[in-house]
């Protein structure tokens, strides 16, 4: 028997990639196993999680789309069979290329200013690891709308992504778990969503004695490993976070317990704030002023004469305030340091107040605050690789639904301020960013630290100034127009308000360019008819799309509406080189960085084609081959240019024809290895096929932004959000100049010191909007992460269901046992879950670890077309959740939270 072990990477979840080997016997893949070859480099010993063990079944699943197919039934609808007819690849590519050519002839942008070509990739953050060179094709194409959402972006850690990068280059935020002593986790479910490296780090830390307090409405997988569970009321996390700030700043001597030096030197705490709410600035240099207690006068923050900046008090000082659109106002008045305003701001948020809001006892809040301060070890230091850092082993983590939708900004701000108070921001033991997606360079976030205004980091924001604001949306979710913090990186379209296209196509708001459906919509590894809110509405919109080309693994609820199905070459069937290592979300902290390969492990069992070959072929058929190869030469999609200071493996301008996938990736392999070694090492594709991955060391000091901030003399833009306030005022002015008022509620979020609003009431309000009363819907339906299913595109695999059934919550709805008894609901009973706008149903799973006012449905199901998944009978929050502007926050996100009624059927 011929047996071999073929190295590949697994990036089925955003916490990857991890590395594995596929066991192939006599040309048949029979299993996967950890990659021991990289045990020394991989932070979790080269292991892979449960999802990777489903890859072989994914490869051989008989329910796959096996060949290209085209629709024969022109009528689109859930009840209308598409009438798929098998066609050849040549006909399929001709069909798609023909549509694309017609776009180029008609003009790339339609009469409303939107790109005629739209592309949606699913599984936020994962798709690039499976895209081959499709990104290079899109770069060669020109304007493409990548903002038609599939739930990615708006259902992610949205506020954390946008504000996290703004404050500390943290697209996601992690604890420095190996050096942390206490974690206060508000719904962070890292043992389900943190991937292999997350689980590994947490396990090591628990054995070491890490204290982990889990505050969430039901006991998640992560709560099982926690030292304490605090069943907090949904969407009230900000209240408890504010109360923690209150205890530290008002019930304790903040001068004794806080890291005053950090606050003074590393934050804007001393910056003086004028009566208009903007920083008081030097009239000439416009530098923010601080009050020097030694000299008894205001000085620019960076004036070396300033020896003792004030953090509290009020002072009479003169200067200018610069508001929206550069409006300068001369001030000679009483001004106060930002820190003093912070203290005043949180004075109202006592633990007793928070207890009433969040159902968390005041004594618990005080105890957690005390533990936080005790473990913060203010003053302690630690040496790492010869560099001495502050050591602050405390972290506050936030989970999904906490970090997105209304209240997300408030939670993220309070969490980051809590870190700043004790100096636990971007230092060993504290909270750290993982990666950057809005800032550049993308490969290392420390290199993205550049001096910006007012002593802070530079942060690119979408313009709001009168002469630079982009009032006409360039894509259908209008992220440049409506969301300054979304920036304009390649990731921004997915991080804009990606559900707005679905909303606005159906219901165009006033003073807004008529939303159009794209002429061609290409989708890959995504199923928005399941993963968006209000799935019925999405399907009704899909019926109107004139041409959908779907890369398809199986039939599913979105590609049911497609015109062309292109069978997907899955994880183990296609070729790609991808960056691994360094620091990455969710908790990937490596001591190496490098590249790993994904490669076909067997001959394809179906008539599939590598996505790189498809991209190349499309480029050739629509006359873009030269531009496509130029894009590959630049590194579009592959992230490594084929020409650098020490290498040149570019495609020549006049190439002999479309290159093969192997030719392209061979060049990428060689450029990638050269780029990591200053040209010293070059490995080709054949080498990667054998060895799997190539690494160079990545110093641990690159984990901590602190070093870069100190080296550049920069401060964190905390606690006062002057720039946010100004940007919000400018955006408000721009929208009002256009007569737009439907975004007014979102504009209220741009507060310099975010405060409590009754966030749950915003969702409860959906009842009144539907002509019902909130009292009719006394429960909250929430979602929670399943490690077996999150991001995996694997709901059609029965082996995953086989093992997932062991974890409570699969496949039904979790209810509090005592409450269920009162409703006459027994284990396994079929229950209906009704919201003001929809209904779903599922089997009751009774648990003690669920708040009495909460029901929990894992992940996103509700399938009716996907093979096997449609038999699971899993309730879906998305079927009952509204897609509603009123539930959309200023960053353009919402949250998985629905007021519902529950009854036995």
């Amino acid at each position: 028997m011929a047996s071999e072990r073929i190295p590949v990477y697994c990036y089925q979840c955003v916490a990857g990639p991890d590395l594995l080997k596929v066991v192939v016997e006599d040309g048949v893949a029979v299993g996967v196993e950890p990659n021991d070859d990289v045990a020394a480099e991989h932070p979790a010993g080269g292991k892979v999680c449960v999802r990777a063990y489903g890859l072989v079944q994914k490869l051989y699943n008989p329910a796959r789309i096996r060949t290209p197919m085209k629709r024969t039934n022109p009528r689109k609808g859930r009840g209308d069979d598409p009438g798929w007819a098998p066609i050849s690849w040549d006909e399929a590519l001709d069909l798609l290329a023909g549509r694309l050519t017609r776009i180029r002839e008609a003009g790339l942008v339609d009469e409303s200013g939107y790109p005629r070509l739209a592309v949606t990739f699913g599984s936020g953050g994962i798709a690039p690891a499976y895209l081959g060179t499709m990104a290079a094709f899109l770069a060669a194409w020109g304007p493409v709308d990548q903002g038609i959402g599939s739930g990615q972006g708006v259902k992610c850690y949205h506020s954390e992504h946008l504000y996290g990068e703004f404050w500390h280059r943290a697209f996601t935020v992690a604890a420095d778990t190996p050096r942390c002593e206490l974690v206060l986790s508000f719904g962070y479910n890292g043992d389900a969503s943190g991937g292999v490296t997350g689980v590994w780090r947490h396990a090591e830390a628990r054995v070491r004695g890490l204290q982990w307090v889990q505050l969430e409405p039901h006991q998640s997988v992560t709560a099982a490993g926690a030292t304490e569970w605090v069943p907090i009321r949904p969407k009230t996390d900000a209240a408890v976070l504010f109360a923690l700030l209150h205890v530290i700043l008002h019930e304790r001597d903040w001068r004794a317990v806080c890291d005053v030096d950090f606050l003074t030197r590393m934050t804007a705490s001393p910056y003086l704030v004028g009566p208009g709410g903007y920083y008081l600035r030097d009239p000439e240099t416009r530098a923010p002023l601080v009050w020097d207690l030694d000299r008894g006068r205001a000085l620019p923050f960076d004036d070396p004469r300033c020896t003792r900046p004030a953090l509290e008090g009020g002072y009479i000082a003169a200067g200018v305030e610069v508001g929206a659109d550069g409006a300068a106002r001369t001030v000679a008045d009483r001004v106060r340091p930002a820190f003093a305003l912070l203290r005043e701001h949180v004075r109202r948020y006592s633990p007793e107040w928070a207890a009433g809001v969040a159902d968390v006892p005041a004594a618990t809040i005080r105890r957690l605050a005390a533990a936080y301060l005790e473990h913060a070890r203010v003053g302690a230091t630690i040496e790492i690789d010869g560099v001495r850092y502050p050591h602050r082993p405390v972290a506050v983590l936030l989970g999904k639904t906490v970090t997105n939708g209304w209240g997300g900004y408030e939670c993220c701000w309070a969490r980051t301020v809590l870190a700043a108070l004790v100096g636990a921001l971007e230092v060993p033991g504290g909270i750290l960013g993982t990666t950057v997606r809005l800032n550049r360079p993308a490969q290392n976030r420390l290199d993205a630290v550049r001096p910006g205004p007012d002593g802070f980091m530079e942060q690119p924001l979408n313009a709001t100034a009168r002469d630079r604001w982009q009032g006409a949306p360039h894509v259908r979710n209008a992220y440049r127009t409506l969301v300054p913090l979304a920036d304009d990186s390649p990731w921004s379209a997915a991080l804009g308000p990606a559900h707005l296209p679905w909303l606005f196509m159906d219901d165009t708001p006033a003073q807004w360019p008529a939303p159009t459906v794209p002429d061609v919509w290409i989708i890959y590894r995504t199923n928005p008819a399941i993963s968006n809110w209000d799935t019925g509405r999405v399907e009704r919109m899909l019926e109107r799309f004139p041409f959908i080309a779907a890369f398809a693994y199986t039939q599913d609820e979105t590609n049911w509406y497609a015109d062309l199905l292109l069978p997907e070459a899955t994880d183990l069937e296609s070729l790609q080189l991808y960056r691994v290592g360094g620091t990455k979300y969710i908790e990937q902290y490596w001591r190496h960085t490098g590249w790993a390969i994904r490669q076909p492990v067997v001959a394809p069992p179906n008539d599939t084609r590598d996505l790189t070959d498809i991209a190349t072929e499309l480029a050739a058929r629509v006359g873009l081959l030269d531009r496509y190869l130029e894009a590959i030469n630049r590194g579009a999609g592959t992230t490594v240019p084929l020409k650098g200071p020490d290498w040149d493996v570019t495609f020549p301008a006049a190439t002999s024809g479309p290159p093969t996938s192997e030719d392209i990736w061979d060049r990428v392999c060689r450029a990638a290895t050269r780029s990591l070694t200053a040209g010293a090492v070059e490995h080709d594709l054949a080498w990667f096929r054998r060895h799997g991955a190539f690494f160079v060391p990545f110093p641990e000091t690159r984990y901590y932004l602190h070093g870069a901030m100190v080296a550049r003399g920069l401060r964190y833009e905390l606690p006062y959000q002057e720039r946010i306030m100004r940007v919000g005022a400018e955006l408000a002015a721009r929208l009002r100049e256009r007569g737009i008022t439907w975004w007014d509620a979102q504009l209220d979020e741009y507060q310099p010191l975010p405060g409590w609003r009754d966030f749950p009431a915003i969702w409860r309000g959906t009842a009144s909007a539907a002509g019902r009363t909130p009292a009719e819907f006394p429960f909250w339906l929430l979602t929670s992460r399943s490690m077996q299913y999150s991001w995996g595109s694997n709901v059609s695999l029965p082996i995953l269901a086989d093992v997932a059934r062991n974890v409570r919550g699969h496949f039904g709805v979790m209810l509090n046992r005592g409450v269920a008894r009162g409703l006459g609901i027994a284990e396994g009973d079929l229950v209906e879950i009704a919201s003001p706008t929809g209904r779903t149903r599922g089997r009751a799973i009774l648990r003690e670890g669920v708040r009495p006012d909460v029901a929990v449905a894992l992940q996103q199901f509700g399938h009716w077309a996907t093979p096997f998944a449609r038999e699971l009978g899993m309730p879906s929050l998305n079927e009952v959740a509204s897609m509603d502007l009123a539930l959309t926050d200023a960053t353009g996100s919402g949250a998985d939270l629905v007021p519902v009624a529950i009854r036995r059927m």
Partner: protein
Amino acid sequence: MRWGMVVDLRRCVGCQTCTIACKQEHALPAGTQWRFVADCEVGEYPDVRRVFLPMQCMHCAEPPCVPVCPTGASRQREDGIVWVEYGACVGCGYCAVSCPYHARHLVHDAAGYFDRPTPSEAASARPERHDVMTKCTFCKERVDRGRQEGLVPGVDAAATPMCAVACIGGAIAFGDLDDPASPVSVLVAAGRAAPLMPECGTRPSVYYIVE
């Protein structure tokens, strides 16, 4: 020599990676799991703990499943591994009834996951397991093959049960309970590892660390 296992529950997150890795290693049919991680609750709201508890054959030193077998198919090796000689098993189920840990699985129909076997299922098929009792073998083939190659079970992955190799929390240690220097013996000797339901008197070879 007595092979044993120590499962550190502090490290387990119930991910079922061990479950699926075991299924793959032994080509178990749909619905059959020689090991799984139970998702348990202790207490009542709000004073409740969620606990993940990996369950499998305990490879008891005094296994009740062996003497009750009418055909002698249920056997115990000198190294403690309890196993089934499929050719001698008639599938009567006495052993399953006797096992206090519900760790035996009678496979009547080695069904695949789909209407027809996939290529991987066909290549891995184990027809000798039809209509007989099956159970965790401590991956004795891996252990034996590894030892023949000079590897150390519990240290070298190729000689270690697949559940321990795959576990992403590092929760599963394997080794020789008779070797005081082995990782499992050290953990047991430290007094922090205890068997499940010792009152059954079967002297399990699988221990758990709880706190």
